[in-house]
Each structure stands twice: as structure tokens, then as C-alpha cells.
């Protein structure tokens, strides 16, 4: 019995390690690949670089274009979050805590949005953004992204607001606080965790976005990192090491962010899915 259990345990580890290798090989290939020469990549892409080449990473780290893309990505992610957080929390609060006619209908309207990708609205979005002069403007990406991000945010926030004990609200109402005071000085301070979760997943989504920025940001100066990575990959398709170095530098922020905010990212990205 005991030896059988050990064998099963061993089997599980073998499977787990095989999968782990599948996950880590592409990542380490990219990171290490940036330290190789193209010749090394062609002749011996496995193992540690010999010798280590720092020139690609150094080139990119001193490339103004790269940093401009980082800045554009950061600006758009922050703008998107700055729109999603207040808009979603105001709406989720009133939907979660008050009874009014049409409440479920409004909530339903928001939840439908969960189903539709940006692709279904892309042509009119483009036309509208062109009309109001937001093409090649960070807001032209941030606002639609925020709009498509609202459903998840509201769906995740509603149960959270709802779970706050009514006694807290009553105590404040007796002191004469209206709905806005309640929202601002009771609900928001209590909902820091859920606001944090939404902020984190909004940033991740925005950081990774490609389709919308590709359409809206045609001007090189406005390009975000994903667009930059795609361009490098297409433009220097045979300069393998350079492509890998660029890609690695683009994914490091996401991985660091994940390491720092794993709990929020995992719970946020899966909670939006489970709560229907």
C-alpha cells in the first residue's frame, strides 16, 4: 500500500514536471535567446549562452523608441483604470445597495457586454473616434477599453458591495449621510480589496491589448509595446536574438507584476468568469 502511494506520487511529479517544462521552455528560450548571437541561436539554441552577449538588451534599453512604447502602454493602462474604477464602482454600488425600478434590467444590460469582443464594434468605433479626433490619441484606446471592461468590473464589484453589512450603512444614515457620502466615506474605504483587484486586472488587460491599439494608433509615436513587439518581429524576422530580447523586455513587466499581485490577478481574472 505504502509503496503504491509513493509510486503514484512519483507519477504525479513526472507529469507535473513535464508540463512545467512545457511552460518554462518558451519563456527561458526567449530570455536566454536575447543573450545569444544569431549564430548561436542557429547552431545551439539549447543550454546557456556561450559566451553571454549583452549587446541586444543594452541596445534596446537605450532605444528611445522602446521607452516611448513603454510610456504609451503605461499611460493607456492608467487612463483605462482611471475611467473603469469610478464609473464601475458608482454603478455597482447603486445597483448593489438600492432598490429601484429597472435595477435588474440595468445590471442585465451591463452583463451582456461581457460576451462581446471589441471586434464586433470595431468599424463604428473607428468611425466615431475619427469623428471626434481621437485616432492616434491614448484616449481613443483607453475609453473603448474601459467601456468593454465595465461589465467584468461591475459583476465582480456588485456582490462585494452587497456583502457589506447593512448596519454600517444604517449607522451612517442615522448620522444624516446621503447616498453619496455613504459611497465615498463608507463603501469605498471598505472595498479597497475589490478596487485593487479590478485595478490590477484592468492594467493587465490593457497592457496586453493588441487589436484595438493596432487600429487606433497608426502613428509610430503612439505605438504601444505589443505593437512594437509585433513590428520588431515582422521587421527583423531574421535577427532572431534581437526579436527575442525585445520580446523578453516587453514581457518582464507583466511577469514582475504577476509576481507582485498574483492573488489579485488570479482571483480577479477567474472571479469575473465564475460569478454569473
Amino acid at each position, binding site marked *: 500500500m505504502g509503496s503504491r502511494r509513493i509510486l503514484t506520487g512519483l507519477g504525479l511529479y513526472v507529469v507535473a514536471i513535464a508540463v512545467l517544462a512545457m511552460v518554462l521552455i518558451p519563456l527561458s528560450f526567449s530570455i536566454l535567446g536575447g543573450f545569444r548571437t544569431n549564430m548561436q541561436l542557429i547552431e545551439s539554441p539549447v543550454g546557456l549562452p556561450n559566451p553571454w552577449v549583452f549587446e541586444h538588451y543594452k541596445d534596446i534599453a537605450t532605444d528611445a523608441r522602446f521607452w516611448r512604447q513603454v510610456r504609451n502602454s503605461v499611460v493607456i493602462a492608467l487612463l483605462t483604470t482611471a475611467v473603469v474604477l469610478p464609473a464601475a464602482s458608482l454603478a455597482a454600488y447603486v445597483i448593489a445597495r*438600492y432598490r429601484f425600478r429597472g435595477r435588474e434590467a440595468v445590471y442585465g444590460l451591463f452583463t451582456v*457586454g461581457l460576451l462581446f469582443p471589441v471586434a464586433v464594434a470595431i468599424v463604428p468605433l473607428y468611425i*466615431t473616434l475619427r469623428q471626434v479626433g481621437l485616432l492616434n490619441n491614448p484616449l481613443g484606446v483607453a475609453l473603448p477599453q474601459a467601456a468593454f471592461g465595465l461589465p467584468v468590473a461591475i459583476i465582480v464589484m456588485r456582490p462585494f458591495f452587497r456583502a457589506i453589512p447593512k448596519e454600517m450603512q444604517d449607522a451612517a444614515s442615522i448620522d444624516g449621510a446621503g447616498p453619496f457620502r455613504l459611497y465615498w466615506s463608507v463603501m469605498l474605504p471598505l472595498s479597497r480589496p475589490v478596487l485593487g483587484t479590478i485595478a490590477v486586472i484592468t492594467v493587465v488587460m490593457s497592457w496586453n491589448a493588441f487589436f484595438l491599439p493596432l487600429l487606433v494608433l497608426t502613428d509610430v509615436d503612439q505605438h504601444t509595446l*505589443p505593437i512594437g513587439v509585433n513590428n520588431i*518581429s515582422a521587421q527583423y524576422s531574421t535577427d532572431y536574438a534581437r526579436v527575442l530580447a525585445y520580446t523578453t523586455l516587453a514581457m518582464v513587466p507583466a511577469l514582475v507584476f504577476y509576481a507582485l499581485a498574483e492573488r489579485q490577478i488570479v482571483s480577479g481574472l477567474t472571479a469575473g468568469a465564475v460569478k454569473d
Partner: protein
Amino acid sequence: MTADTGGTRSRRGAGGSRPRRLDRGISWPAILLFLLPALAIYAGLVLYPIVQSTRYSLYDWNGLEPLTDFVGVDNFRRAFSDARFRAAIRHNGYIIVLSLLLQIPFALGLAALLNVKLPGRRLLRTLFFAPYVLSEVVAGVVWRQILRPNGLLDQGLSAVGAEGLSREWLADPDIVLYSLFVIISWKYFGFHMILLLAGLQQIPKEIGEAALIDGATSWQKFRHVTLPLLGPTLRVSVFLSIIGALQLFDLVWVTTKGGPIGASSTMATHLYEQFRRGLFGYASAVSIVIFGLCLVVALAYQRAVMRRDLRGTGLVG
């Protein structure tokens, strides 16, 4: 406002989902003010464009001139008789089938594995989820380097003496979809795994133990106890997988641009190509088709979820 304090407090235990009595102490202008920012952005940038897409889809239009050339459902007829669009729909379909047959069972197996008290499973969980946090662009570019002729995969194969297995992974029309599916699975299995693991952890251990004491094998326990109880989570996983496959764009555009000769096109890459050619009316029709398919999937999902709820009442199945 202070009048509604009685009665309902005792219901606190009921699953937590039932709201305690809600407040009415709010005026209409206040409600509207709370809803206004979200509703305005959402209506202006989600709902209105979808309605507009429907309108544009009925016109022959290049996006510049006035919208005058009404053509009825011609754009849709053209879409469905366009062999390239039909191929694109088929490709989305293949990805869906492959995901449901391979990726989700794979994710489920790993979730079951990590549900066992294995030392180090927290770390494994973290690492398996990591690709999901990366963008499809990054995943696509790295994999393009791995799969290119004489790239890491080919080199690896020849290192173990299996160079005969080498293929044009991204350039062979017969293989490219499978290659893309591997990349998709690499990026998304961790997400489904976490979802299913959360579902598994909600199942009380006692139920499975009771089955084992009654003499069920581990497989029987999994098949007849775990799987049915996991139903709702599994359905969410399936649903998200289908919706994701229907809108597949970034990864394909970055790795193959839908090629070679359209062998890996998807509805969304087809849409983007028509858009770039200035065929705004036709592109709108394509986006409405994607919209319709997502809607059908969503409705089917709703039905499945509702059936589950009804089953709890003993009225069906």
C-alpha cells in the same frame, strides 16, 4: 429609511447570495447620477457601435463618402458565399473542437493533480498560470521563433535523432492550425486549470471518501461523483473557451497573419483584412456574424445553466 430594519436579518445563512432587504432611501436623480458615467461610456462605446455595425452592414461603404448605397443583405450574402470567410469560420470551428476535446480535459487532469496534497503544488499553480498573464503578442512572437524552420523545435528533434519529424510548422497549410492550437493551449490551459481547481476545491471531501469506502475505484469516484459536481464550473470553462476561440485574432495575426494561403485565417483576421481594404460595409457584416455567433453561444450557455438550476428543484432530469 429607518422603517426597513425588521424581519430579514435571520436569512443571513442562505448561501450568502440573497440580499438582505435593500434600501429605498434614494431619489431618482441620485440613482441616475450614480449610473450616468458607466451608462454613458457603455452606451456610447459598446451598445451604440453594435447598433451602428448593424446599420453599416446594410450598405456598400468605404467609410469616407456619405452612407447612401443601401444594398440590403448583400454584404451578408457575399460573406457567406466568400470561400475565404467560410474557411475562416471553419478554422474557428476547428479551434473550438480541439479546445474542448484536448485543452479542457488536459486542464482538468492537471487541476485534479494539483488538488492532491502535493508538496510544491502552490508553486506549480503559480507557474502554470504565468503564460495567461502574458499578451498573445508576446506568446505568438516567442513561439514563432520556436517553430520557425530550423528553430528550437526542429533543433530539439534533431538532437534526439528525430529530425524526420520536422515540419514547416507555421508554413504548411495542413499543419499550421494545429501549431496555433498548441500555442493557444500553452497560453490558456493554466487559466482553465485554475478555474477547474477552484471548482474541485468546493466539492466536500467527505462525498468522495464515502464513495471510496463504498468500494468505488478512484476512476469511478471521479466519473460518478467529482465530474457531475464539477458540472457548473466545467460549463463556464467550456463557454469561455468557445467565446475565446470565436474572437481569436492577436495570436494568429502575430504568428501567421492568417496564412499561408489563408490556411489559418479566423473570422477576426478576415474582418481586419476587409477593414484595411476599406470595405467598411462588408467588414461590418462580418462583425455582425461574429456578434450573432457569440450571442447564440451565450444563449445556449444560459439555457444550460438554467437547466442546472431547475434540476436542483427536482423538476427535470
